[in-house]
């Protein structure tokens, strides 16, 4: 049996076939459940997308559909869903395929980082065979589509395609705002190795703007601006309002995993009903919530980590962004889950199974406690806002901070990697320009050699793969249901 398992996990075909099959089964099951039950497998948001796509076929604005808060690109991509019949499920197929492509990109990045095919596949299946991921995308949530863009961004960057990664970053930020934090870490990682140690401030500023950085910044800004100008020209102010400004003005009072949640509910009520305000006057403090969030995810973590391990940095950034965000629902967890396969080969969570198991158990329990309180509130009508939900969300916040601390620490003890730092990108850029691939290839090989020598390969990994995928079977269904019912 173990040998069979091993062979299954080592074959690329079997992993991708199982990943495909898993999604195909869920997709067909979803269509079946939708056809026989009033409780739909399909995500509520999917109806928002498809309604918006239908609006586009009628030559009206996707923003005519209330709560459509995405780029019009999404509704354009989903236009086939309005063709009727089984085409309705086109988007889910697309999102599920995005999962597979994201998995393939993870595999590529892992192999580039020197892992053998078998091990790389094993880690990639944390994503590919993760039922939570498959469930979310086959239900029609667009997060999987964003994840493939983000992974493509990382892959392009790691393979030295600076312009492409700039374009992808612009696209990602246009799609959902948060990936802009990756711009910070990638910019930081694109350092010119300096030979001279002494330099004036002006020199170092000038040095900061090396060719790659300028290329990366301009490609991403141009893409982002071009997309926005295009969309604004077509759809006008509603595009700006729903895609971007909404996130500045929303109240986020409904209970969610964010530690700010209770405070936001309280202060939104106090702003609307001044008589409630009473003694507490300093409640506008929550408007400063972005300070710790952005300091960590867009500045401190990139600066402290990006040159050592970019994928782990991106994981830490995303985890920090989601954990310190003013609103946090279960779909946001997918944002950092995509980086997990790239981080765990190098992680003390797998090196020390007890630590990994504890972290996982706490992460699950933190959510379970919150969900239990949320269920009491939503469906039993008990006022569990305080202390129950408040404590549960602070507890979950603490757990996430703890895990974030472990990730940060893990990167800290890893050496500054040449893979991401210094001359490599410029070499590959010149290589791609001149068409001489061997240069970059040799370097890749050298790097792989070095990293396989590193601590990661010598560590026991336990059965981390199974552990992680178990997360979902434990609690995804009920949690999603509770959240969706909001």
């Amino acid at each position, binding site marked *: 049996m173990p040998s069979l398992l091993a062979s299954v996990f080592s074959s690329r075909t079997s992993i991708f076939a199982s990943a495909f099959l898993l999604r195909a089964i869920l997709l067909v099951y979803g269509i079946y459940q939708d*056809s026989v*039950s009033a409780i*739909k497998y399909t995500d*509520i948001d999917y109806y928002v997308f498809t309604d918006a796509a239908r609006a586009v076929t009628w030559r009206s604005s996707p923003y005519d559909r*209330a709560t459509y808060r995405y780029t019009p690109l999404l509704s354009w991509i989903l236009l086939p869903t309005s063709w009727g019949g089984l085409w309705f499920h086109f988007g889910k197929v697309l999102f599920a395929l995005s999962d597979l492509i994201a998995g393939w990109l993870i595999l590529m990045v892992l192999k580039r980082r020197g892992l053998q095919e078998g091990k790389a596949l094993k880690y990639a299946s944390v994503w590919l065979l993760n039922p939570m991921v498959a469930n979310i995308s086959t239900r029609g949530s667009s997060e999987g589509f964003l994840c493939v863009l983000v992974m493509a961004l990382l892959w392009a960057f790691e393979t030295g395609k600076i312009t492409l990664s700039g374009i992808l970053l612009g696209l990602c930020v246009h799609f959902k705002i948060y990936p802009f934090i990756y711009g910070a870490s990638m910019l930081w990682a694109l350092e010119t190795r300096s030979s001279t140690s002494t330099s004036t401030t002006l020199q170092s500023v000038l040095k900061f703007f090396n060719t790659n950085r300028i290329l990366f910044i301009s490609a991403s800004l141009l893409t982002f601006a071009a997309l926005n100008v295009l969309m604004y020209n077509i759809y006008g102010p509603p595009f700006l309002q729903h895609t971007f400004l909404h996130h500045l003005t*929303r*109240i986020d*009072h*409904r209970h969610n995993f964010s530690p700010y949640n*209770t405070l936001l*509910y*309280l202060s*939104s*009520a106090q702003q*609307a009903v001044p008589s*409630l305000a*009473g*003694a*507490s006057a*300093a409640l506008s*403090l*929550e408007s400063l*919530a972005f300070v*710790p969030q952005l300091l*960590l995810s867009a500045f401190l*973590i990139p*600066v*402290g*980590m990006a040159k050592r391990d970019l994928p782990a940095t991106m994981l830490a950034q995303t985890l*920090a962004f989601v954990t*310190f965000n003013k609103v946090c629902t279960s779909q946001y967890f997918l944002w950092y889950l995509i980086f997990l396969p790239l981080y765990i080969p190098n992680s*003390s969570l797998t*090196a*020390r199974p007890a630590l990994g198991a504890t972290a996982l158990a706490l992460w699950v329990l933190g959510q379970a406690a919150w969900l239990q309180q949320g269920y009491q509130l*939503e*469906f*039993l*009508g*008990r*006022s*569990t*806002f*305080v*202390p129950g939900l*408040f404590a549960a969300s*602070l507890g979950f*916040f*603490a757990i996430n*901070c*703890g895990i974030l*601390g472990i990730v*940060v620490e893990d*990167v*800290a*003890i890893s*050496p*500054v990697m040449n893979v991401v730092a210094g001359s490599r990108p410029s070499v590959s850029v010149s290589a791609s320009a001149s068409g001489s691939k061997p240069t970059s290839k040799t370097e890749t090989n050298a790097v792989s050699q070095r990293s396989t020598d*590193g*601590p990661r390969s010598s*560590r026991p990994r336990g059965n981390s793969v199974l552990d992680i995928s178990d997360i979902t079977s434990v609690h995804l269904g009920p949690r999603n249901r509770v959240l969706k019912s909001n």
Partner: protein
Amino acid sequence: MRRRPTYITHPSRAVNPADIQVYQNQLLLGALKAAREERLTLGLEELPQDVVDVLKESHELHVRWAPERPYNTTVPFLSRISPGLHVLYTPLKEDQPDRLCNLLHQVLGPGLRCESPQSTFTSPALISERFAQTASLQYYSLLPSIKPLVAYLQRKVCRPSDLVCLHTATLLNIADSVDFDYDSISHTLTLTTMWSRQPDIIYDPIGEFTTLDAWNLDIPRSGSDKVEVGILSPAPAPEPSDLQLSGFLIVVGEDDHPKPTLFSFPSRHHSLSLDQSKLQRYTISFDKPTGLHPILRISFASASSLTEPKNKPVGSVCALQTYLTLPSHIFADKYAFLSNDPLFQKSHNLGRLRSITGETDLEAPNYVVNKWGSTILLEIQTPNDRESNHKDSAGMWDVTIPLHLRYLEPTAGGTSTVEVPWPIVFWACTAEDGTKFPVNPFDRTQLGYDGLFGPRTMFYHLNPAPQNGTIVERIAVPVLDTEVTSPRTIEYLTIVSIALGFLWVLFKLRWSTSRTGSGNDGKKNLKKKL
């Protein structure tokens, strides 16, 4: 001022004309058990200035009020609305500074949540722009008592010495419907009040006597104003779409004896036949526990009896419908209904969503919502719509409507109570071409739902049958409990947690940056730990 009192007695209690005493300037009749409608038509010059100011800015204004206790309808007063205050209003100009809310506060109580028609009122759906049958703006509020109106009339309309006026105004307290209608074409305001039955007890301050369970008619002619009194009983109508009344009409001051009369007219509103209306009574409840997603349940005692009105015209097509008036704290997710998913409809015994208007934002808490709320017109499936499923037709028939609550302000104690008026339920049936409802002298329109149908639609109303005497449901809503944890504590705990979390990550980061380039140390370190 023109006054038109109408008394409707049961046919078995038809009035003997000899009992009606008609004098030159007065009509007298004692101990009459009857439903009553008073219709006063007033010119602008007869109204208080603050009312005139608002009416002059109105194209049309219709105010409807119904009490929270149920009442039985009588021919020809057969329409029903949800309990509370309904206002339908079309301003003269689109963007005028509007004082309607001020007037509503003055006349009906300062507790009404009404900022201005632009911000608080909603726009009802129009079935046709050109032949708009309904006003452009709609407002609703729960209003358990009409007492503020009585006080306003006594203060602003009655002379302090006018005992009859002061006393008559108090009769509004026991009315079953109060309507005001104004339009800029007639420049008159009509006040129509209806009592479904005689009062249990009534005191005459002039004659100084008390009457139990009856009206005492003492109707004077006042100056040059005409008073046309009707003392009538319903009779079987020749046409199913018609109502018929027989009895006596007396114009006080003109006539010297009661004039016998028999007349029929088409009516928009109908009741079911006696046996059908008993079997099709409905009860409203919310499934327990209500949580934040209450399910409104319309229960009919007998599924098999839920059939089209027997008294509908031949060839008329009917559908059972419900019209919900939902204050802003409760709302329906319109997309759940708009998908027209047959499985969803079947699981709730619902049909198509015909109309949903007003505040349907899915996310906003109640304290940031400006509009008063929303209205929903929904078709209801009946057991007969499901020929395949015969076992359903035995026993009860329940229709469920999934609704959602908005977040409310935090309170001490952690619970707020909100009120939801019972929806009305009716069969909407087609009437023959050429049926002219406006000739009905008791025609009642601008009820909110009637404008959502074509002009030739008849409404056969089902009767609400509450267990506890009220047709308003109360729901406990969980809110943030300011008693358990003070706002300040929440604030401090949140900030301290965020700060600690931030510092913890920062500490880990600092530790990492301080070891820049010391990868080997790290490796050793880790190996030691292992």
